[in-house]
């Protein structure tokens, strides 16, 4: 069963499509990295799933049920744009309100549990307004985690965080999925961070889904290449072009694609009278793939 199944979803504001006939499939149990530039429609899609916005057309199903079914919606936790807490109330009071809202019986225990997950067990009595940005984001995640959600929707949870904050957030997200097994839809600009946790990706541009792929598919697509420098770059390039199929001169380096046997390359160049001064094995990751995909679309 898919956790989220979106078919032909559209939403416009003043005649402009923010989400344009979008199709999306998030398998149950996945950590789905939702990627796109600013204004591409990520947050709008998430708000549509959460029922904050009314779609112009299309269908949204959560765990095989219509998204307006109260039974499924009560099992959705969301952090969209901000934590959505009352600034004058304490962290505990904000969490308590959500516990009451969800009808959680052992509220104190549940609050302690989620505060432990987000590493804020000592800050329950702090006023929300006096928390740092990183803490506020973590409280937002704690709010979303209350009541054992089946689906977590997190909109840019690591934006604006410092390195340490990002690390803590990543650990929290990995913990959540490992221990509680809920499906996570997470949008972020920080692709390097996303790559470390996501099992699936969806890339959106101008409200349209460009591609969806799993981490395994991403790995298959990820090209490996060897990057090197020699004293005679032109000579080495000619020699390598005769031996290898895909040789390119990029950013001041010679790059040999789909080859990662550096020893063989060094050996071959030595035989042809070239001394290698610098060599490294590389892989095109999510970030490079995304940039490439975006530039292709721009050309189209």
């Amino acid at each position: 069963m898919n956790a989220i199944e979106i078919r032909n979803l559209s939403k416009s504001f003043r005649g402009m499509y923010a989400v344009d006939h979008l199709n999306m499939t998030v398998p149950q149990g996945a950590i789905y990295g939702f990627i796109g530039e600013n204004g591409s429609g990520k947050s709008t899609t998430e708000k549509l799933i959460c029922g904050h916005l009314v779609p112009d057309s299309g269908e949204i199903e959560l765990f095989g049920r219509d998204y307006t079914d109260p039974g499924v919606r009560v099992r959705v936790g969301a952090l969209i744009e901000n934590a959505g807490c009352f600034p004058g109330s304490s962290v505990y009071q904000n969490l308590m309100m959500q516990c009451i809202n969800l009808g959680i019986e052992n509220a104190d225990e549940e609050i302690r549990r989620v505060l432990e997950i987000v590493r804020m067990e000592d800050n329950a009595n702090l006023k929300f307004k006096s928390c740092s940005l990183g803490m506020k984001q973590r409280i937002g995640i704690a709010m979303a985690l209350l009541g054992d959600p089946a689906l977590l929707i997190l909109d840019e949870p690591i934006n604006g965080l410092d390195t340490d904050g990002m690390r803590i957030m990543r650990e929290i997200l990995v913990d959540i999925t490992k221990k509680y097994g809920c499906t996570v839809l997470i949008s972020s600009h920080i692709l390097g961070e996303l790559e470390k946790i996501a099992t699936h990706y969806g890339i959106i541009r101008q409200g349209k889904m460009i591609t969806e792929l799993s981490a395994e598919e991403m790995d298959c697509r990820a090209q490996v290449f060897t990057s090197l420098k020699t004293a005679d770059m032109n000579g080495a390039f000619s020699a390598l072009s005769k031996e290898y199929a895909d040789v390119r001169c990029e950013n001041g380096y010679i790059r040999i694609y789909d080859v990662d046997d550096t020893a063989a390359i060094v050996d071959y160049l030595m035989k042809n009278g070239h001394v290698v001064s610098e060599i490294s094995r590389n892989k095109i990751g999510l970030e490079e793939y995304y940039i490439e995909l975006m530039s292709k679309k721009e050309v189209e």
Partner: protein
Amino acid sequence: MINSRDIIFESPTFARRIKGMLGVDFYRLFHTPLFYIFLAIAAIIPAMVSAMTMMPDPNGNTMEPLYSNVWQIIASTKSLYVIEGIADYANMNMVFIFGGIMVSIFIGHDYKSGYVKQLFTTHAKKQDYMLSKSLVCAFAMACMCITYLIGGTVGGLLVNYDTNVNIGSLLVAIFGKIIMSVGWASLYTFLNIIFRKYFGVSIASSFFFGTGILIIGVAAIVENLSLPTAFLNIFLYGASVNANLSSGIDALIICITVSVAWAVFYNYLGTKILSRSDVY
């Protein structure tokens, strides 16, 4: 690696949903200063109004008393849709003006803080939100009516106003106005749903409707044309004014009917609007 589990989805009953939503709203009401501030305002204003007019000036003269009877601070002596003097207006009906402002702030904070996102994410039925806000705000306004009664009575007794009254009519007036809180709270909730993106406009609109200016205007025209004014009782302001110190049980029945009818109407309309429009 995908980590999935079996999930059971149970649709919460209406009672469970509304219990959760009401629980949140009552928790907020009792754990934030807003409610207590407005309770205090509702108590202090009638006490001040009654006492201030009786304060002697440097020559020892006092102003013309605003009221002649303690219970006039609570309700007017007859159904006065058009105001003849400030005393006709300055009674428990004023709670519906302060109450409107309180409701606007209460609901406005839901949107300002973004907490409403949590509510709408987990509550697919918009009716839950509308109904819960209306009921909790009605409760808050009813409490304000009680503190107004206490403040007004204490103030009136302190300045030695007369206490003669028809107890039956007084009870009708008090209970009638308390019951009207349901209708007024639903109106204010509805207005705040419409103007949810404009906090200032929602406060202004609540204040405008709370003053009853529209009905007072209509009443002035009706009275000028020497037409019967009884039909004005179908409106919230009219029914609120109709519960006064000369009312009978019929006024209480009118209050119940009008308050519930408008509450149902505004809740229905508010739910429709929320269901068909973007909520945040």
